[in-house]
């Protein structure tokens, strides 16, 4: 099956990474205000997850780390060449792997689900799929 044009993949990654910046920034800002992001379906899972010690990594807010990660992915989507293709794949793999771990924590340790964290995990999964496709199809080709 012929892969999508690299321009299409880069445009999709740009769109998804921009959404990711928005989601992660919203969570980080809500936490910085001393609250939690609003859970549209109710249930208060977001408050429980945000209150958890797992919402910080070495004293740094995980959502803030997410903002940085999505910005780096946005940069990789906007740039051309093998460096950007490999960076997009590698960063998305890190983000995807850590999202799987965080989702596991929500389900089995914190026992609460934050919809915004799930949204971020879905976006990171999409970026991983795009990153893998772009790398496999275009590394070693002309930018």
């Amino acid at each position: 099956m012929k892969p999508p044009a690299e321009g299409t993949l880069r445009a999709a990654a740009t769109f998804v990474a921009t959404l990711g910046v928005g989601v992660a920034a919203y969570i980080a800002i809500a936490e910085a205000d001393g609250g939690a992001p609003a859970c549209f379906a109710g249930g208060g899972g977001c408050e429980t997850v945000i209150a958890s010690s797992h919402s910080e990594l070495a004293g740094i807010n995980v959502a803030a780390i997410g903002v940085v990660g999505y910005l780096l992915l946005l940069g990789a989507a906007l740039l051309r060449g093998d460096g950007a293709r490999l960076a997009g794949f590698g960063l998305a793999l890190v983000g995807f792997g850590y999202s799987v771990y965080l989702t596991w924590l929500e389900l089995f340790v914190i026992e609460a689900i934050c919809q915004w964290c799930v949204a971020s995990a879905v976006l990171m999964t999409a970026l991983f799929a795009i990153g893998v496709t772009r790398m496999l199809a275009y590394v070693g080709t002309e930018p």
Partner: protein
Amino acid sequence: MNEADEQRRERLVKLGSATAFLAIVAIAVLVVISQSGGDGGDAANVEGAAEVRAELEGIPQSDLVLGDPDAEVTLIEFGDLQCPVCKSYSEGIVPQVIESKVRGGEARLAFRNFAFIGDESVDAAAAAIAAGEQGLGWDFVDLFYRNQGAEESGYVTDEFLRAIAEGAGVQDIDKWDEARESPRVRRQVEAEIAEAEDLGLTGTPSFVIEGPLVDGEDVLGTPGDAGTLEDAIDDAA
């Protein structure tokens, strides 16, 4: 496959593998940092005593009941000191309710031990009750949660419990030690577990409310936000 394709394939395999390896190492490092950051359970490094004192300062407490003894409404939290979700509540939702409803005297907040996770939960529960007998039960509970370790990992030792009791401000450690080991306190733990089971509770934290407008006890379950508990207090008064 022509030579150009072969070269591309080699480059892809080499660079892709190296990138994937680095990414997997990065994930492992992040997970290890995450796990080590919240381990707790360290008797030599009890943290948060000053924060606990500041949070509870000026609020009367007796046994494991926090707040005005004459308050019309009693909100009861059934918790297990080893439960990580209870720890989350202790650091997020419960302090909000304390500030909004307990400090001002609208309600009092009782902690009861639904010590179901394991033997370490029972030891911790007895230690909390014994601290409560010296008027520092909530300080003990709050400080324990802040230093909670992994469930049934062996961290709830005599040394750890003593460090929490001292951090909570328990003055007579010998009396506390004697009480927590006594059959009387152990029976109280069993009675609190039995009460939780009689109420049909299946997990922790679970909240129950008593008040003038409540017939007996109303089981609230595990509301996910402070507002639900505050509304329940308003409705019960």
